[in-house]
């Protein structure tokens, strides 16, 4: 590469998982910015270190675990020096130098030197046959030893040691695991689960010596045995040292970078020399070092962002979880699973089935969990923990698992037991085998990447949990599930952060947001633009104007697009009521336009199908004439208000449920929301209008009205929570308006009320709507104001038919005969 290149020079020291991940992230966002040179001590491209365990166990080959082969470096114009260890950094002149005398100049330097295995300082430690478990070379040594020797001693009963022991056993060796503590994996397991783990492994043939302190490794030419403090001696052909890792900071220390246990970095992954960044196991961030890939990948993302000079995104530390990659053993551990005097434990133990589950709770939030034997809910607990969800409402159901929270059909699947041709994603027809294949062959780690490569879970998302479980089973350890997900690929900011900016910075348009927050794509994308449009309108109902080009076609055309490009039209039937006149005009339109399909929808009204876009305005005009208006069946907005006939006719009816439904619909129609919103009012607890599966439902009783919120009957069924009981219709309308406004102001775009409530906790809703009268009134008032702005309650069909606005979109630009 020429010295005169206009690009800046980035040098990466360490060709491992964190370093190369950072390079990949950088290439995604700023492919032209740097000439990149990578130095790696190991003689390979970049491989997936996590999968060394299955390689040792004979379940995978080295070829399977390559992430980036040499061709990838060439394709991306990266200069790679393998087998080259950097030994010097001239920080003044910005030059690095390897042991073999190779040099490279840098403008920015990235240290990603990983860690070194710790070797116990006992006599005999240097004998041939003492092996660590860190890289391909170590695995080669172990595999060779397994061919000639019989006895292996693994020192260290942690994650790494047990995976090594399992692998060696699979290679036919007799293996003893030696551990200094009272139980295995004491950093991830409590005493009970540790003992259960030991029992299962012992049943597979593994032997153990606990509370054993190694004195000496015996042998003259090579390893022959191990001697312990109590005098015991074990025969050994190899000794695997897996007693821990130490961040590899030798080089950084030598050149005067500030190090403690690791290389100290700030929230943007910079060391004390601002030209030098560091990521991976070698760093210490806010006092923490990490030994799992998920946090390293989060670091990589932030670091790349700063190298690219975008300057947004901070790394704030990670919460991690662990799994053991030993086939047939299910364990999961995360967070603080021992707790202190301020914590409570919930424990379920079923010794006969070999199941143990413990969740540690502090201030109504999960702070840690250990699961053994049944780990299906690991991902769920971990999510509740990371998102700091208040679990007081689901406490009593917590231990039964997510499947018992009203999830019909999608929960409770054990993906590990599924065959490869089991369909996981029903929308895109993606099978388990395809996903597993993509994860291993393309080196995927995150849900996002699986979506990108296979489309699984990229549509309705109901299989997200399953895909996450597959990621877990395949990768074993924690896959990268960042704590707060960015809104989309255009930005690092979360939905909440963007909303906050819009509010505090008084941003009134999409271009303003994109400019201020330095979006990567200048026009945004199909996923953020509709969200931004909504956030702007809901935050500034008076100041902001709608942007039709940022709406999905349905909302832009005020009708639902069908698979053949025609549209459906569904007029509103207030509270499920209609009249002969309305029905006549529907019938006339159907006749006049030869519409084959007239469907009674799932929402108590009538849908007309197969209308050409250019005919929409006239069809609307005809419907308008009999008083029919848009039913917003296409919008993230109020859809239907289902009712039963109620007191007027029904012998059990206690109140005027139909009238209530109509009033609710009149109050709330037209308002834009994060997602669609459905209501119902039933005249008595027989609940014929199914109010307890709606976003907001009213069940009438003799003494008043029960108000229910957060129901859903689509992808995942959820029954409502009972918000409260009120006595008058006026109260009922106020609660409804307040609830909708809270949802409008705080839920993420495309959150239905059900997932939103599960995230923030039902108590939070209750506090704001029921307990805090002032807050409720303010919310209801803000809703009332926003209903009067931006033509919210003017029928969009009338505007586009009789008033003739926005005609171009319905007409062809030109017709060429």
């Amino acid at each position: 590469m020429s010295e005169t290149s206009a690009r800046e020079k980035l040098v990466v020291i360490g060709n491992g998982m964190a370093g190369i991940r950072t390079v990949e992230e950088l290439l995604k966002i700023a492919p032209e910015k740097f000439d990149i040179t990578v130095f790696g001590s190991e003689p390979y491209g970049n491989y997936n270190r996590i999968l060394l365990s299955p390689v040792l166990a004979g379940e995978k080959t080295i070829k399977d675990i390559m992430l980036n082969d040499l061709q990838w470096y060439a394709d991306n114009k990266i200069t790679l020096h393998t087998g080259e260890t950097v030994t010097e950094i001239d920080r003044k002149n910005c030059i690095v130098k390897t042991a073999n005398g190779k040099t490279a100049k840098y403008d920015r330097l990235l240290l990603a030197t990983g860690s070194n295995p710790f070797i116990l300082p006992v006599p005999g430690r240097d004998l041939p046959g003492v092996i660590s478990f860190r890289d391909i070379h170590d695995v080669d040594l172990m595999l060779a030893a397994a061919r000639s020797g019989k006895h292996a001693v693994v020192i260290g009963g942690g994650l790494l040691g047990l995976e090594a022991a399992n692998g060696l056993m699979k290679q036919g060796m007799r293996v003893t695991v030696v551990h200094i503590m009272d139980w295995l994996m004491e950093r991830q397991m409590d005493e009970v689960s540790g003992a259960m783990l030991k029992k299962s492994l012992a049943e597979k043939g593994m032997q153990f010596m606990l509370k054993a302190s190694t004195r000496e490794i015996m042998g003259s030419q090579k390893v022959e045995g191990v001697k312990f403090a109590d005098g015991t001696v074990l025969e050994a052909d190899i000794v695997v040292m897996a007693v821990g890792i130490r961040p590899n900071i030798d080089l950084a220390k030598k050149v005067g970078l500030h190090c403690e246990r690791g290389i100290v970095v700030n929230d943007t992954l910079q060391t004390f020399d601002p030209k030098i960044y560091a990521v991976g196991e070698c760093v210490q961030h806010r006092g923490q070092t990490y030994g799992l890939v998920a946090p390293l990948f989060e670091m990589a993302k932030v670091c790349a962002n700063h190298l690219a000079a975008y300057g947004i995104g901070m790394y704030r530390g990670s919460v991690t979880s662990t799994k053991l990659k030993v086939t047939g053993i299910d364990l999961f551990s995360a967070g603080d699973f021992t707790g202190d005097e301020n914590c409570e434990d919930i424990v379920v133990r079923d010794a006969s089935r070999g199941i143990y589950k413990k969740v540690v709770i502090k201030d109504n939030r999960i702070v840690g969990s250990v699961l053994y034997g049944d780990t299906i809910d690991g991902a769920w607990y971990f999510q509740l923990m990371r998102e700091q969800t208040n679990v007081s409402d689901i406490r009593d159901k917590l231990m039964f698992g997510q499947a018992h929270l009203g999830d019909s059909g999608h929960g409770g699947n054990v993906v590990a037991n599924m065959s490869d041709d089991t369909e996981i994603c029903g929308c895109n027809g993606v099978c388990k085998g395809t996903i597993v294949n993509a994860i291993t062959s393309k080196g995927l780690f995150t849900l996002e990447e699986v979506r990108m490569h296979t489309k699984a879970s990229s549509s309705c998302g109901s299989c997200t949990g399953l895909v996450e479980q597959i990621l877990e089973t395949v990768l074993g350890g924690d896959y990268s599930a960042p704590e707060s997900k960015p809104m989309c690929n255009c930005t690092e900011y979360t939905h909440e952060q963007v909303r906050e900016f819009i509010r505090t910075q008084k941003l009134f348009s999409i271009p303003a947001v994109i400019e201020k927050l330095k979006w990567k794509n200048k026009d945004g994308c199909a996923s953020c633009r509709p969200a931004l449009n909504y956030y702007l309108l809901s935050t500034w109902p008076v100041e902001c104007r709608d942007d039709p080009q940022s709406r999905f076609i349905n909302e832009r055309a005020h009708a639902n697009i069908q698979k053949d490009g025609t549209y459906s039209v569904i007029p509103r039937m207030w509270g499920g009521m209609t009249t002969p006149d309305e029905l006549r005009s529907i019938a006339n339109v159907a006749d006049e336009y030869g519409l084959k399909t007239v469907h009674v929808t799932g929402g108590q009204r009538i849908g007309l199908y197969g209308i050409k876009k250019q005919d929409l305005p006239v069809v609307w005009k005809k419907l308008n004439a009999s008083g029919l208006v848009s039913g917003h069946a296409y919008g993230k907005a109020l859809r239907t208000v289902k009712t039963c006939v109620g007191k007027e006719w029904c012998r059990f009816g206690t109140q005027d449920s139909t009238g209530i439904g109509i009033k609710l619909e009149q109050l709330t129609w037209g308002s834009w929301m994060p997602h669609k919103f459905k209501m119902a009012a039933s005249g008595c607890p027989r609940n014929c209008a199914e109010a307890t599966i709606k976003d907001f439902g009213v069940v009438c009783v003799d003494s008043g009205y029960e108000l229910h919120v957060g129901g859903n009957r689509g992808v995942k069924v959820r029954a409502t929570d009972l918000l409260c009981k009120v006595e008058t219709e006026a109260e009922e309308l106020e609660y409804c308006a307040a609830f909708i406004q809270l949802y409008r102001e705080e839920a993420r775009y495309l959150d239905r009320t059900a997932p939103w409530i599960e995230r923030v906790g039902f108590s939070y809703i209750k506090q704001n709507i029921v307990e805090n009268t002032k807050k409720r009134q303010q919310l209801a008032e803000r809703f009332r104001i926003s209903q009067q702005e931006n033509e919210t309650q003017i029928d969009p069909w009338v505007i586009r038919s009789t008033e003739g606005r926005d005609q171009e979109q319905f007409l062809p630009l030109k017709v060429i005969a």
Partner: protein
Amino acid sequence: MSNWIEVGTVQDIPKLGARVVQAPQGDIAIFRNAQDEIFALADKCPHKGGPLSQGLVHGKTVTCPMHNWKISMENGEAVAPDHGCSRVYAVKLDGEKIFLDLAK
């Protein structure tokens, strides 16, 4: 041999939007992006034939309204991991006027 047909002006198409030209060979979507560049594609997504003219325009790409495939407005190619291509038509601008060539 080119055969340019005038179909309208840049102002006739909303920024980051599209309009349709009805032609004997089927509908053709005419797009306008933020830089006022004009593109023309057969109004048929390579996936299942969705009308690309009804999608969201960003950069030089349009996202299909049906199942969110992203299609390059320059060459009609679907963006990876999807595969497929929509026919591209030649367009040129003369001042504000848009000309389309159905043969190319």
